[in-house]
């Protein structure tokens, strides 16, 4: 049933790969457009550095960036939900942060924080904390006032209302935000590595670029995409398990 449901997407993806293969074969210049087969061969040839050095490096930056974004996003959302003053003070500032061209100022992060992981983590955090903050904030605001009032009449404290009403009601919003944030965090990490790093898939892709190795540029990009898809699949499975009630509402 699940395979049948996904069949259209699988067929579309295979068609696109086939089209890519044909175009690449017509151009016949791997440094401009390598074919999917050439990219697959390159991944196999470079499996050692790709999977033991660069993928773990990028995933570490992604994970640290994501954890910081989640903690920061939830904290900001909760503060804005509880205190109207902080909502009025912070919300416009948070929205403004999204107008900053992160790519343009990312080289500064390397200047400030060096070539270690923190300059890349900062790029990932700047890109991902926004959707998490805004979605969790919307989730906390989504609870019905009448539910809150009913709980008050039962004698539940503000903290109990937060734990028993607001958090469960917010979970669907939180999972949507994390599903959005995971690919963004991976992109942020790779972008940071492009601008200055000693390891990571972004750094590896840039190095292959200088060698005019088209398949070598694509190989880490494919690995990045697969990592993002796997992470989103894991989160979706977790979401299905934890908030099965959403389908039933």
């Amino acid at each position, binding site marked *: 049933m699940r395979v049948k449901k996904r069949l259209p997407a699988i067929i579309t993806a295979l068609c696109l790969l086939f089209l890519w293969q044909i175009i690449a074969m017509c151009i016949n210049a791997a440094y401009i457009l390598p074919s999917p087969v050439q990219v697959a061969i390159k991944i196999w040839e470079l499996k050692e550095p790709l999977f033991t050095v660069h993928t773990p490096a990028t995933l570490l930056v992604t994970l640290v960036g994501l954890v910081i974004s989640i903690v920061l996003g939830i904290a900001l959302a909760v503060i804005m939900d509880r205190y109207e003053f902080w909502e009025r003070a912070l919300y416009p500032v948070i929205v403004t942060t999204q107008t900053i061209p992160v790519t343009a100022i990312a080289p500064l992060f390397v200047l400030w924080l060096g070539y270690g992981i923190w300059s890349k983590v900062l790029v990932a955090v700047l890109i991902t904390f926004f959707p998490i903050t805004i979605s969790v904030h919307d989730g906390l605001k989504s609870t019905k006032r*009448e539910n809150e009032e009913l*709980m008050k*009449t*039962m*004698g*539940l404290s503000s903290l109990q209302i937060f734990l028993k*009403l607001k958090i469960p009601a917010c979970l669907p919003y939180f999972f949507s935000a994390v599903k959005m944030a995971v690919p963004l965090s991976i992109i942020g990490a790779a972008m940071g590595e492009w601008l200055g790093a000693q390891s990571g898939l972004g750094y590896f892709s840039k190095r292959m670029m200088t060698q005019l190795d088209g398949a070598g540029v694509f190989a880490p990009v494919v690995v990045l995409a697969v990592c993002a898809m796997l992470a989103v699949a894991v989160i979706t499975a977790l979401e299905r398990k934890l908030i099965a009630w959403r389908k*039933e*509402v």
Partner: protein
Amino acid sequence: MPLLEFNNVGFGYKTGGRIVDNISFSVEKGELVAIIGASGCGKSTLFRLITRLEANYDGSIEVNGEPIEKSGAIAAFMPQKDLLLPWRNILKNVALPLETLKMPKQERISRAKNALSRVGLSGCEEKKPSELSGGMRQRASFARTLMTAELGRELLLLDEPFSALDSITRTQMQDWLLKQVRSLDKTVMLITHDIDEALLLAGRVIVLCDKPASIARQADSSMIKSREHLFTPQAIQLKEELTQLLSADAVLREADTEVTENAR
């Protein structure tokens, strides 16, 4: 001494003008009082004042002779919509009020099971609200109200509990509620806009009219003890009088709305 006494109570929001004015009535222990009036006339505001969701009212509200602010919470409230939490099963929804107490989980579950059995929902403990019909959800909501009452609340406030149900289910639920409240040792206040429902369930009917709302009449309906009694000449006459009162109020409200709209 009455359980609850309103003396010249008035209330309004800063932005929206007065909602209720000069409301005076009392409710004795064990009584079942219905409040009827047009939609949006301010019936629910009285419940919001009793549950202390609203403050800054004029006049005085007393519970057992003491100002309501000095007494603890006295009311278990059943809202118009069931407001069951979709992520909790029925048992956990019903047990929610008991979570305010430091009570062993087993006892909480056992009490909630008793309440569910009382409302005829045994076997539905593990079901989610979405798996129940409208009538069953309202019964679960009533069971949750009974759990709130177990926190030492003497008064049950039922705010149009059956307004969202179809007419057949509503009739069944009214008969069911009548049996339930008669077997409970509680004082009950019921808001409804259905005159038959008020006469059938309550011993006294308070009619709210005008804008801001005030009490137009308090009618004794204790002679109506079953659905058949609704067709006695006395009941029919009372029903007609109340209908006339509410119809006149509806005409006034409509005229008032037109004047307001024209002024805009």
